[in-house]
């Protein structure tokens, strides 16, 4: 028999994987263009609402909605990037923060208008709601699948970044954007594709998170803060850093809520501030 601490670790790991999916795109795009996109979680919210409405209104199976969430979030994000965001790559941080917070406000209002402010119900098929018991610990099947999926995506991202031509372009642009341009790399195009991929992953993360954290219009604000913590603690442009930060954050959040619930999110913020003061560029941040 294992003590309950393993259950907490497992739940925290699953939660951390969710945060990783939501934030990895933000980390790479921020490292590449220094563009602070606070609207990143709005794409996650889009994915979540898409999954819920496809399932409840059109009776789609859960797994069929996931690619949909990915693709729609990616397309919408590229539309916004081409029309609004690209004007601000050279602008001040304040302008970037304001524009993207404006988009968060708009997305929250639209979600509240279309879907109402209630929590969205999600009817998962029966086999996903069951759980396995191993050495006295209950492992929810859904969380196991979530962890497996996130790990597969991490491996794909790391391999893609390290071994493909496109990945080399992305790394070059993150390391030194001007130099990459000088070498003839089309940084704008590379960035647009990366941005779409990152937002698509956020959409996927949003779709997967409905079962675990629920979905209402405040999602875009609540998880914005978590994503920013992951990005700033993990270090810009670092996939492994984001993964480490997301897992630490997920486990400490779940453990904090389990063992010292009266402290609430206090502990998380304290950890974030001390980490930032110690290493302002993040745990694995370069530069």
């Amino acid at each position, binding site marked *: 028999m294992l003590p309950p601490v393993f259950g907490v670790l497992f739940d925290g790991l699953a939660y951390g994987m969710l945060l990783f999916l939501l934030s990895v795109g933000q980390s790479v795009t921020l490292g590449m263009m220094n563009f602070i996109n606070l609207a990143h979680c709005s794409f996650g919210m889009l994915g979540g609402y898409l999954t819920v409405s496809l399932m409840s209104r059109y009776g789609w199976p859960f797994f069929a909605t996931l690619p949909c969430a990915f693709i729609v979030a990616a397309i919408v994000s590229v539309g916004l990037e081409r029309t609004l965001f690209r004007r601000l790559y050279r602008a001040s941080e304040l302008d970037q923060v304001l524009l993207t917070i404006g988009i*968060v406000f708009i997305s929250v209002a639209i979600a509240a208008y279309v879907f109402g402010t209630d929590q969205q119900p999600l009817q998962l098929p029966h086999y996903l709601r069951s759980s396995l018991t191993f050495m006295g610990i209950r492992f929810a099947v859904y969380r196991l699948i979530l962890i497996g999926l996130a790990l597969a995506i991490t491996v794909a991202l790391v391999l893609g970044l390290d071994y493909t031509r496109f990945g080399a372009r992305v790394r070059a642009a993150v390391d030194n954007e001007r130099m990459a341009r000088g070498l003839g790399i089309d940084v704008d195009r590379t960035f647009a594709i990366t941005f779409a991929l990152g937002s698509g992953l956020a959409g996927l993360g949003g779709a997967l998170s409905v079962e675990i954290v629920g979905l209402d219009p405040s999602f875009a604000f609540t998880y914005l803060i978590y994503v920013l913590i992951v990005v700033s603690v993990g270090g810009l442009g670092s996939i492994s850093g984001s993964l480490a930060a997301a897992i630490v954050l997920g486990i400490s959040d779940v453990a904090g809520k389990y063992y010292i619930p009266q402290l609430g999110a206090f502990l998380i913020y304290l950890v974030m501030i001390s980490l930032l003061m110690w290493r302002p560029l993040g745990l694995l941040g370069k530069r």
Partner: protein
Amino acid sequence: MALGEASISPRLHLAEQTRWRTPEILFWLATLTPYFLFPNYLSLASQIAIAALFALSLDLILGYAGIVSLGHAAFFGIGAYTAGLLSKYGWGEPLSGLVVAAFAAGVVGYATSFVICRFRHLALIMLTLGFGLLLAELANTLGWITGGMDGLQGIHTWKLLGTFPFDLYGRAAYAYALVVLFILFLFARRLIHSPFGLSLRGIRENFVRMPAIGAPSRGHIRTIYTIAACIAGVAGALLAQTTETVSLDSLGFERSAEIVVMLVLGGAGRLYGGIVGATIYVVARDQFSGVVPQYWYFWIGILLVAVVVFLPNGIVGGLTQLAARWGRK
């Protein structure tokens, strides 16, 4: 323009900027009109004055020193809770309450300024956000002091100067908030037209180069951050005293975001930007949010995007540009 003569010496340049101009005098006379034109909206007017004071304090650090803060409501909240608690436990005298609130916010501002002055860019934004969230969470946890989700109840503010009671119509409240706003505005105006204010703008433009010409960037940022915290504390205390209640959202993230919106809407780095932005924002919120609050968020979002894309210097900046173009013709 008289730029030629004004730039002969720094002293003359500053003196030229400090001169009172007609639009400014007209503006402050206009703040008295609610008493004659909208006597039913005086409590709204006092809320505008409080928001304007809060925006002014943010302008000092964001507009002039270039510190983008997403946690400025922390100081507003500290001021509000200090004044509220003081009054709840037996000392409801408003003016001394303001002083104590300013002091409390200033102490916390001074303590955090040592961290703030060492960082720039994203880390700075994240740190201000983190401090704000930390404090909001702390206030939520310490429910036995702050009243938690229910807010701080049982505040009773004594008569202003021992003679004017705070009534439902907000006559005393508006006069009180307006006078405090005006005095602190004069202080801020003097401050930014001083050599210190000039060096703040220099720090905003280039943090590293200013020490080379003898302006200690970090020391100056510590000073202005503490001053801004004090003023934000006064604004919070004004709200607590005039509405006789303090709620948790007085130091939440939404409040911090809202004040940035007001300031940028009016125009950051301009003395009147915060006041104009606060006026438009609070009046619009009063008109719109009565129907459905979500619509209000939608319009705020549209407004933000529009300001960033079309009006980079805010409304006051746009008007100044228009006036300059008109003056040239």
